[in-house]
């Protein structure tokens, strides 16, 4: 079954994203929101896991408004796709269920 994870904490200071990635599987999607978007930085402590999981079929997104707010648009991992608020709604609709990590 498809599962959407949202994560709103920075992996530079909290283990929230790491805990999410630990149980991610192919067909899951991960949407980084709020301070969670720092997880999409090239310098992210989770970069390696994100790239490995991405290669295994996990899809990664970062909420565009939160990325722009924090001034990090230019420094994101290539495997992470920017998502609008409408994309967020579509992700919720297309996945069977959503787990919010905060």
């Amino acid at each position, binding site marked *: 079954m498809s599962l959407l994870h949202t994560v*709103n904490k920075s992996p530079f200071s909290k283990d929230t994203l790491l805990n999410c990635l630990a149980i991610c599987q192919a067909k899951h999607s991960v949407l980084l929101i*709020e*301070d969670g978007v720092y997880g999409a930085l090239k310098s992210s402590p989770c970069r390696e896991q994100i790239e490995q999981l991405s290669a295994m079929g996990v899809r990664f997104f970062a909420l565009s408004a939160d990325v722009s707010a924090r001034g990090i648009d230019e420094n994101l991992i290539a495997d992470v796709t920017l998502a609008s*608020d409408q994309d*967020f*709604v579509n992700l*919720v*609709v297309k996945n069977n*269920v959503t787990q919010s990590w*905060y």
Partner: protein
Amino acid sequence: MKLSIAVYGAPHSSEASESAYRFASAACSMGHSLIRVFFYHDGVHNASSLAIPPQDETQTTQRWQALALEFNIDLVVCVAAALRRGIVNTEEAERYDLESQNLGKGFEISGLGQLLDAAVSSERLVSFGH
């Protein structure tokens, strides 16, 4: 699709209610049916009629009220969480002999069971926490 959301963060202090509102607004404008927003934990402060943010900042309570009016959304505030945090309607104010109430118009105080009811009656439920 029928959606509900749960909001656990207070306006201003946390970004959770901002994210929740933007999600709610996008869902409604896309034609989905947002049946309930359930305010729990610090989320109950979204319903305060006494919050006066500076004019150039987000007017959270009014924004929820306007969205609810336009799209016919239940704005439900958990009674136990609200009483602990000083959000009361007229009925509770009378019951506890308080001099005033501060629940914004359009918000309804109800039991915690309404959160589960939202999960049961909606096809999708999303939580916004801090």
